[in-house]
């Protein structure tokens, strides 16, 4: 375990504090950037309007204003609701996102927990959020919320599987489940003996990338898979009854998990924080600074894709979604695993 970070912090406790602060920053910073760049500005550009322009230059402080607004709002709990669960559910959803970020490396030493089964861990904890959503839907004592919660849970379970299967292809090719190991495998990799650009897996695992992105879209509940929210059918699904701070938590959870899955996709398929080893020495301490920036850039690419799709497409119906998962994505993912295995053994 390398203790030094940026050559400045040597003691275990210093590094621990740095990492703890880092994980909060890693949750809130991409989430805030996503909200501003994509939700406020990109979508406004797509819909030929300006978006927020008053708070700060080009509305850049709008997010803070929104947070202030939500904190001031009354936190309403419906009379018939199950108070404890209703209040706890948003924290469960947000906490899940924090847990996901724990395993993502942002640089050679910029990680929070270098787990051996990192990928597996991420898939496991991301499945907890379906629990929070289901509880939120049930405890609201609202039929729309209940339908939304049930839809969300069904959808999250159905898309867990293609996601896991898509990731298995990457794991087979990298030969490790550790995310740092996968980053290193991509940086050191070579394509038919050519190591100039390493081997980012979006070239060799493009099928897995496609399935992963579709599954991410469904896991996040973004259009075309936003049936749990479905504001035109279910009002806003499981968050119908939430207001004030707890609504804000769901909101943060949505965008922070978009950031988290973008980070995971960037790590698994685009080389994570690293550049190909042919370009630079990855052990350099500079990568503790450059790595997070590279990572953020790649996350923005993936996030842009996620939100572009969100604001362009209409919504599937629930049965169509399940059909897509079980009859299209899972078979393709299985074939991808088979092909990856054969090629891995052959070469």
């Amino acid at each position, binding site marked *: 375990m390398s203790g030094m970070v940026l050559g400045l912090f040597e003691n275990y406790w210093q590094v621990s504090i740095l990492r703890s602060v880092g994980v909060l920053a890693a949750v809130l910073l991409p989430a805030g950037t996503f909200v501003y760049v994509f939700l406020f500005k990109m*979508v406004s550009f*797509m*819909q*030929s*309007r300006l978006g927020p322009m008053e708070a700060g230059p080009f509305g850049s402080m709008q997010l803070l204003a929104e947070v202030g607004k939500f904190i001031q709002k009354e936190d309403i709990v419906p009379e018939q609701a199950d108070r404890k669960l209703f209040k706890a559910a948003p924290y469960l959803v947000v906490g899940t996102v924090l847990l996901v970020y724990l395993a993502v490396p942002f640089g050679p030493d910029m990680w929070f927990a270098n787990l051996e089964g990192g990928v597996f861990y991420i898939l496991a904890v991301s499945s907890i959020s379906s629990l929070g959503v289901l509880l939120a839907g049930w405890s609201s004592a609202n*039929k*729309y919320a209940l*339908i939304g919660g049930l839809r969300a849970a069904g959808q999250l379970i159905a898309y867990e599987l293609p996601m896991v299967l898509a990731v298995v292809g990457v794991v087979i090719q990298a030969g490790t489940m550790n995310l740092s190991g996968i980053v290193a495998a991509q940086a050191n990799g070579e394509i038919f003996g050519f190591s100039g650009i390493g081997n980012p897996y979006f070239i060799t695992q493009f099928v897995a990338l496609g399935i992963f992105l579709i599954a991410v879209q469904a896991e996040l509940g973004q*259009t*075309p898979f*936003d*049936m749990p929210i*479905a*504001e*035109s*059918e*279910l*009002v806003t699904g499981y968050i119908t009854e939430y207001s004030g701070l707890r609504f804000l938590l769901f909101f943060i959870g949505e965008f922070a998990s978009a950031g988290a899955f973008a980070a995971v996709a960037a790590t698994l398929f685009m080389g994570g924080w690293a550049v190909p080893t042919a370009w630079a020495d990855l052990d350099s301490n500079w990568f503790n600074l450059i790595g997070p920036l590279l990572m953020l850039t790649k996350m923005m690419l993936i996030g842009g894709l996620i939100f572009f799709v969100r*604001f*362009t*497409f*209409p*919504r*599937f*119906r*629930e*049965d*169509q979604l399940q059909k897509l998962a079980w009859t299209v994505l899972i078979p393709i993912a299985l074939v991808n695993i088979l092909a990856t295995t054969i090629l891995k053994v052959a070469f």
Partner: protein
Amino acid sequence: MTAVTDRQKLAYANAQAADGRVNLEFETDEGMTLNMGPQHPATHGTLRIIVKLDGEQVISCEPVMGYMHRGYEKLTEVRTYPQVTTLINRIDWLGSFANEVPFILAAEKLMEIEAPPRAQWIRTILFEMSRIANISLFVGDMALHIGAMTAAFYAFRDREFVLNQIEGATGGRFHPNFDRIGGLKDDLPKGWLADTKAAMARIRDFCDEMETLVEGNEIFQARTRGIGVIPADIALQYGMSGANLRASGVDWDLRRDEPVGLAWNEVDWKVITHPDGDSFARFWVRLQEIREATSIIDQLCDGLPAGPIMAKVPRIIKVPEGEAWVATENPLGEMGYYVVSKGDLGPFRVKIRTASFNNVAVVPWVCRGVYVPDVVTILASLYFILGDIDR
């Protein structure tokens, strides 16, 4: 305040008991009752739809109307004829000018006068503009209900071109109150015709955009094709009209069949029909109708006759005794006014036939066995305006 009489108490008790029976019926039956509305995003206001569900499948559903009843038929009785138009263009608030026309035509019919040709042509232009303003919003709204948010903004953006033209001619964007017995309030301003033709070109671009963005989208097609199929005979039995009827394959258009006092038969256009009768057909027909409307307006602008815009009408309008029924093909379907006059300053009775009321009546028939998202799709594709249902 007088004391509550026994009779009132009894009425109250009876109402309570009736409510209880209804609730009991809903609670004890199989499945869950979902109350869509009166406040629900998919109901454009205050339509309430009681949906009985088994899982997400609809067992039965029942629209409950009247939450926004404003009593226009009664209100017209205490107003003079010129005052009525300001009231009735709030019925279908998106295509407001089109509401005024049939009433004015009915009054003209009773008075046996006819507007000069120029007024008729301008009326037709504004009528078709109301249609575009109304239906372009439908296009975005339908996409929004299926989950595509961006198309709605495009619809709002491009509808502005038409609203600006309506405002330029009438002074009002939403409630022009421009039609008069015997003609129009004013003539068109200078340069308006050229601006209109430019606006129509923009609307045609909008149609192209919607065809690629919404209509051509696979998810949109998967959500609408084969959903909410209304066969022609059912549509006729429920008294549906307008684009909903034409989407079921019935070639029926009052603009062509009864062109009362308006200039549709002066220009070249065709009635759009679609054989399928599903939600997609309704969307497609309406989108094509916007195109036809732009072509109608272009042709009318080119051939607009010169001349006065008002016929000879007395200063104080008294409509002679009699009864008249005039219906036109409004954006939402057939809209008709049955006006009974006793020779006073105002009408004695007015019966307003609006299209949405009948179009929504088919919901219980068509929504059986579909899923909750399909209910929203079907409601969006039937396209009602709450004011047009409840008046």
